[in-house]
């Protein structure tokens, strides 16, 4: 991969993840649990890495550690050149229900930020122009997720963390949101770390897949996805690649 330059013209540096140990402490009758152990990988600038595995394998915990929301672990996270422009798109949209869609997006930016003027364009791109002044709870979950994507991308992030952002949607809605994500990433190239348990989704989006297993508390497989952009919208190609990657383990 060719060297990627940062906004300031410097050399972009990778996200370095080194988690030696993450333990959920004992609560009541439940014993302490080792969630992550010796998880180490680098994420190259502008690559799309998917963390996958069954529920309970620690992938969301790992993402929270990378995001800086969970500081209770042994190890080190270095976000590299993208550290000042990191954003996180959560599993639930986490919009402020008492602020309109427009206000929710504007609040992600500092007051008087020049990017505020990009909001109408962004709303058009995610198909929410008519919902700009609506309160989030009056919208469908799919539309709330679009608003949450718009809020993430308005920051023009260098690092984008996503935690199962398309679960509990019907298939066509999820598919259209994946397409939207691909378009947004093409317009604004960014390093993505994406968590999902959906293998087809992983293969369709990722350039690289890291698989975690619950018993091991660590990365058990590190695979590159060998698909062109065009092939990613071809279901049979995606399925073949999915079989190639996940039968190898």
């Amino acid at each position, binding site marked *: 991969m060719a060297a990627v330059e940062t906004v300031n013209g410097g050399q972009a540096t990778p996200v370095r993840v080194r988690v030696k140990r993450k333990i959920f402490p004992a609560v009541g009758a439940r014993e302490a649990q080792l969630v992550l152990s010796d998880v180490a990988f680098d994420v190259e600038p502008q690559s799309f890495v998917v963390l996958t595995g069954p529920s309970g394998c620690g992938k969301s915990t790992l993402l929270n550690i990378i*995001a*800086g*929301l969970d500081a209770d672990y042994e190890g080190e996270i270095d976000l590299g050149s993208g550290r000042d422009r*990191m*954003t*996180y798109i*959560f599993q*639930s949209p*986490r919009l*402020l*229900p*008492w*602020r309109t869609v427009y206000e929710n997006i504007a*609040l*992600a930016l*500092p007051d008087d930020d020049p990017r505020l003027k990009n909001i109408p364009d962004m709303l058009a791109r995610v198909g929410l122009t008519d919902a700009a002044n609506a*309160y989030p*709870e*009056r919208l469908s979950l799919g539309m709330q997720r679009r608003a949450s994507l718009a*809020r993430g991308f308005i*920051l023009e992030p260098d690092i984008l963390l996503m935690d199962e952002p398309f679960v509990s949607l019907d298939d066509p809605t999820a598919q259209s949101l994946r397409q939207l994500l691909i378009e947004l990433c093409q317009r604004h190239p960014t390093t993505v770390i994406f968590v999902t348990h959906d293998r087809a989704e992983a293969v369709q989006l990722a350039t690289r897949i890291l698989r975690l297993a619950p018993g091991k508390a660590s990365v058990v497989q590190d695979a590159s996805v060998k698909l062109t952009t065009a092939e990613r919208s071809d279901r049979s190609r995606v399925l073949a690649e999915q079989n190639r990657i996940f039968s190898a383990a």
Partner: protein
Amino acid sequence: MSSTGLNASGERLLWLIASLLSFLLLWQVVASIANDVRRFPTPAVVMETVSQLAASGALWTNISTTLVRVILAFFFAMLIGSIIGILLGKFPKADRFFDPWLVLFLNLPAIVTITLCFIWGGLTQTAAVTAVALNKIPSAAVTLREGTRALSRDLNEMAQIYKFGWWKTLRHVTIPQLAPYFAGAARTGLALIWKIVLVVEAFGGNGRGVGYQIFIAFQEFDVSTILAYALAFILIVQIIEFAVLQPLVARVNKWRR
């Protein structure tokens, strides 16, 4: 608003009028049976007293004096109670330590706080307002503590990721979540405070205020004056409830489905 909304509010008004008229009727009937204008005046006699008091200016002087005390006590009780409640909700260790204090003050009889305030502070406006506020602070603190404990961790993480900072977090994330608790404390607070203000005034009134007038009327067994002040005051508190508190609650809730 839709036409059904107008019909619904029209119907509510009708019920209100019917309900109040039957109350007046009941009052009239009982007063006629009692047949003692001094100890149980009819509605007409009480209305006559109201208009006499209004004409002499006494009604408004006393009500405004009491209202100022209500507003001051309400403001300080809500402010201090909210700050205490939010701090206790945020810091569980402080909560564990101060919770018994809160229980103590919650169960302290109003008459005790009132007496002590007058003994320590003299018969002053400050002592009166403090005595009233002290009766409301603990319950406001308990309500806001509940609200603070229920604050969403998800939204706080969102604010952290999007670098809201403390002011933006307070204004757009925390206060909107606390607003329903604040509104609840305000409404029960107003109901409690205006009743306690009258007791405080009766106890340590310095010649003015509705409570003091009622105390004087009590010594003269002047039931008509007691009821006249009570009616006028109920009317004013209801106006505050409908014109200030309810629109505020509606505004705060307009985003709800």
